[in-house]
């Protein structure tokens, strides 16, 4: 533990931890020192000199950069002396020499540190009459990020972020001195899952995003804090709107979760809210087209259908974007509608749409981990689906922990993207192509040595739909026995944990398709899901939905699933509803509303309660607050219940950890030996992404990965080709990845064309030597 030491700033004695940076210590005591390059989540570099302060030294007072000076006992500092002021003026004058001062047309104006600090600390007048630098403006450095180089003040925040934090240094300073600029290498764009963070931390308007450029003035924005539900990390975000349009999402610095960062998916996946394709009225299917009907008509149709079918099976396919309040209501309706049929574990009628859902490790003998545990652990063990693509900000947290000295052990074959960070990567010798653990973990010396008696955080979950849970059990139970284990069940989708907490019994998609009985009368609700397009079970589910007597979809768009519905009930989305969500640490956080519900959309719970009431079941909720008040009752820690009131308190702004019993029923697939491993990529063809023009192109590339000897077997030497299965032929890019075992081919499940591919069946890969040989699709 670092000791408290005393130091003096502007005549006041203060306390700080030894080793703390002067700028940070002052900040903690409420003394603001202006800065450009220093950022508390990045290593200090002392690039800009804006933070100069005077300190007393044995040789008299000296100006030092406070961002690279550590506090020492009895340090005497002056942050406001004449000399400091002169230095600040001087630095700003220098910085502005090459800055275009085009604030009237710059997106940053109004929230620009350079503008603000020039006002506060600058000389007030310019003496510069010479010609400034000119650059072509703006240049795209990726599909979604633009760069106006002449605005750049060379603080190196963006370059440090991409190197230290996200680990994809595709932007750097080029040239030197007066000519220095940030840039990419030709034909190597800044393709990073995290590029938007650089836009947010750039202290000037040099980096902008295509989605926000020229869209608004910061002083016209309304904003509210909320929580992202793109994956189960639950990053804290700020929603910015103007004239009832979502214009921007920023990362908020939540010490416990995202620490300020976001993935670009979380940041830019919002244009769909205002897409013209969004369903805004209730649609009823008539033959092949949809008619608009009113809410009361729709509810009547549903109730009379239930009556007409006489005690039908009513099943719910649910997704991961509902709030806890909505799941709570789904649980109630599912129980009530099936009162006599489904009240036991075996007979749950709620199916969660994630192919990789398994029973997980929630029993008391397993200690659940928090992200903070990553920083404290000596070893991190990872065996799950691809973290970088599915839990991107968790990837950043792991990277941070590794940088601070934690050992990382990765089991194959899905997390090859993180293998570069790993101390040990256990690939084909340890993990079979079916994801069986082929050895007893104790036999792996490097593994044993790094976990035995150590503080270990494990991130575990099925890596592939065909993986047997037993293989994970072996690993987890071994770890639980010999290490101080904390673990994450790595279910990656949005508010999975909220669903698990608030729905008594949950099953997986395997269960849905195997239990579905065509002989019986079936009504299926699909709630915010599109399994037909993005699941291994998609084909089977499609057949089930076609065979069902009545299908009701609560959703935002017409897609492969909802087009099979008899009734589409348009729902609200991010920013249009209030509620809580639970992340993978069991941290319950608040989602807030800033936009009105568009068209005649309603929240999922409003429809469901409406239906229940129409059927004579008297459950009344007027708003989310009432549902929340009901659902918090079953949380185990009564001291810090995730009520809206409680979560709105400043001390709980970033959520409270709380638990409920969790019941999941899933069975392993019977089929094994899949030659194809289908994985979910960050970007894909989800309805929300394809309807968000600023990022829709990021999910369009189709590619496969295999190792070079497998490629040889297929006779492939070029980088493009066709993937063929039955009548499906998809043009693909071919990536060689030599961490993969022989005879395993990876393909993205959420890219167009691949929804029809069955990973358990054989396929062919042919190479294309020219464009003509590529399939057209």
């Amino acid at each position: 533990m670092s000791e408290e030491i005393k130091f003096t700033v502007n005549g006041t004695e203060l306390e700080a931890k030894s080793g703390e940076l002067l700028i940070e210590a002052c900040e903690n005591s409420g003394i603001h020192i202006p800065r450009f390059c220093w950022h508390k989540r990045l290593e200090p570099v002392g690039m800009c000199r804006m933070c100069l302060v005077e300190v007393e030294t044995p040789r008299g007072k000296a100006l030092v950069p406070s961002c690279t000076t550590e506090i020492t006992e009895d340090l005497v500092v002056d942050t406001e002396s004449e000399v400091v002021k002169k230095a600040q003026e001087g630095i700003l004058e220098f910085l502005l020499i090459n800055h275009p001062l085009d604030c009237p047309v710059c997106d940053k104006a109004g929230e620009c540190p350079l503008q603000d600090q020039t006002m506060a600390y600058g000389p007030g007048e310019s003496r510069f009459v010479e010609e400034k630098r000119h650059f072509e403006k703006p240049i795209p450095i990726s599909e979604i990020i633009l760069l106006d180089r002449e605005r750049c003040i060379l603080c190196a925040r963006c370059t440090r972020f991409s190197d230290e934090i996200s680990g994809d240094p595709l932007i750097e300073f080029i040239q030197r001195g007066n000519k220095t600029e940030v840039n990419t290498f030709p034909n190597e764009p800044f393709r990073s899952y995290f590029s938007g963070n650089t836009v947010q931390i750039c202290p000037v308007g040099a980096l902008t995003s295509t989605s926000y450029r020229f869209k608004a003035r910061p002083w016209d924005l309304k904003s509210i804090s909320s929580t992202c539900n793109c994956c189960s990390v639950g990053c804290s975000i700020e929603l910015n709107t103007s004239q009832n349009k979502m214009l921007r999402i920023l990362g908020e610095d939540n010490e416990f979760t995202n620490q300020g960062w976001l993935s670009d998916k979380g940041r830019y996946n919002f244009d769909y809210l205002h897409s013209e394709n969004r369903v805004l009225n209730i649609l009823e299917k008539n033959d092949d087209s949809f008619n608009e009907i009113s809410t009361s008509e729709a509810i009547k149709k549903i109730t009379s259908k239930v009556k007409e079918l006489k005690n039908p099976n009513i099943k719910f396919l649910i997704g991961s974007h509902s709030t806890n309040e909505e799941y709570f209501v789904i649980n109630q309706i599912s129980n009530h509608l099936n009162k006599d049929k489904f009240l036991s574990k075996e007979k749950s009628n709620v199916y969660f749409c994630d192919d990789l859902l398994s029973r997980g490790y929630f029993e008391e003998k397993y200690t659940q981990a928090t992200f903070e545990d990553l920083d404290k652990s000596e070893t991190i063990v990872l065996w799950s689906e691809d973290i970088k693509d599915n839990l991107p900000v968790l990837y950043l947290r792991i990277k941070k922990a590794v940088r601070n000295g934690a050992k990382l052990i990765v089991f194959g074959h899905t997390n090859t993207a993180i293998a570069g960070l790993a101390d040990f990567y256990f690939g084909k010798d340890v993990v079979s192509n079916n994801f069986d653990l082929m050895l007893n973990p104790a036999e792996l010396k490097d593994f044993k040595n790094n976990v035995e008696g150590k503080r270990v955080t494990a991130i575990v979950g099925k890596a592939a739909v065909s993986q047997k849970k037993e293989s994970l059990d072996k690993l987890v139970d071994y770890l639980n026995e010999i290490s101080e284990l904390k673990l994450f069940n790595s279910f990656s989708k949005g508010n999975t944990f909220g669903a698990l907490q608030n729905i008594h019994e949950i099953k997986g998609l395997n269960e849905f398709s195997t239990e579905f009985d065509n002989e019986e009368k079936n009504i299926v609700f699909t709630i915010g899901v599109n399994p037909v397009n993005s699941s291994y079970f998609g084909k089977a589910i499609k057949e089930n939905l076609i065979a069902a007597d009545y299908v009701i979809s609560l959703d935002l768009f017409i897609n492969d699933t909802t087009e099979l519905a008899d009734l589409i009930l348009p729902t609200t989305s991010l920013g249009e509803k209030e509620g809580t969500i639970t992340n993978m640490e069991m941290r319950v956080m608040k989602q807030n509303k800033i936009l009105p519900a568009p068209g005649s959309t309603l929240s999922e719970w409003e429809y469901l309660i409406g239906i229940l009431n129409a059927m004579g079941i008297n459950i009344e909720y007027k708003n989310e607050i009432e549902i929340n008040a009901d659902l918090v009752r079953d949380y185990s820690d009564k001291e810090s219940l995730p009520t809206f009131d409680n979560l709105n308190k400043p001390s709980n702004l970033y959520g409270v950890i709380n638990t409920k019993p969790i019941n999941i029923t899933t069975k392993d697939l019977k089929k094994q030996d899949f030659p194809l491993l289908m994985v979910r990529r960050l970007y894909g063809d989800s309805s929300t992404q394809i309807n968000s023009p600023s990022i829709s192109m990021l999910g369009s590339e189709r590619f496969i990965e295999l190792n070079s000897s497998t490629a040889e077997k297929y006779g492939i030497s070029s980088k493009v080709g066709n993937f063929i299965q039955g009548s499906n032929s998809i043009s693909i890019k071919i990536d060689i990845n030599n961490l993969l075992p022989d005879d395993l081919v990876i393909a993205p499940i959420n890219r167009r064309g691949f929804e029809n591919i069955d990973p358990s069946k054989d396929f062919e890969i042919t190479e294309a030597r020219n464009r003509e040989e590529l399939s057209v699709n």
Partner: protein
Amino acid sequence: MTWDSKLIKKAEEIIKLYPQKRSALGPLLYLAQNKEGYIDDDSVVEISNLLGITEVQVRSVASFYTMYKQEPTGKYLLSVCKSISCEINNSKEVIGGIKEFTGLSSNETDPEKTFTFEEVECIGACGGAPAVQVNYETIEGVTPEKALDLCKYLKEEEPKVIVADDLQEKFGGIKSFEWAIEDNSGTSTTAPGFQIIGTAEEN
């Protein structure tokens, strides 16, 4: 693959000299300079693969240091010092003469690709000012007349290997000190001749 197996092997030997791969970046850039006369994009890709860093990181370093050239150079790189010691010892006229002979301004290369001319800051030969380098082989005590002779010699004789001692004898004047044992090695490209990285050539 634009680097042949011999060059890759050389690069790998150099990389082994360092505890961290990326520390070999400087020498590898000289290999590129030695091969192409400047740091071309293909070599940047090659180096980034060899060192496991990104292309733009390589380019960042390559474009920071002025001795890594970003444009193709001529056969002979004439670097004339313009810093203070040389300045007070008449480097202006040396520079003027060379400019006139070659028809080049600083950082230009002639169309025949014979000369690249540059004015540089102190090259550490103040004791023998004014100083000139040809392909980083230093000649001290160069008079304006000798500078012209040097240019003529290079243009007409087109020596393959440039060796400092040799040129010093022919075109130099006073030397700051005897720098080292006489050696016959120099360079035949616009990369400095370093034995250890294999850019040096014997005369």
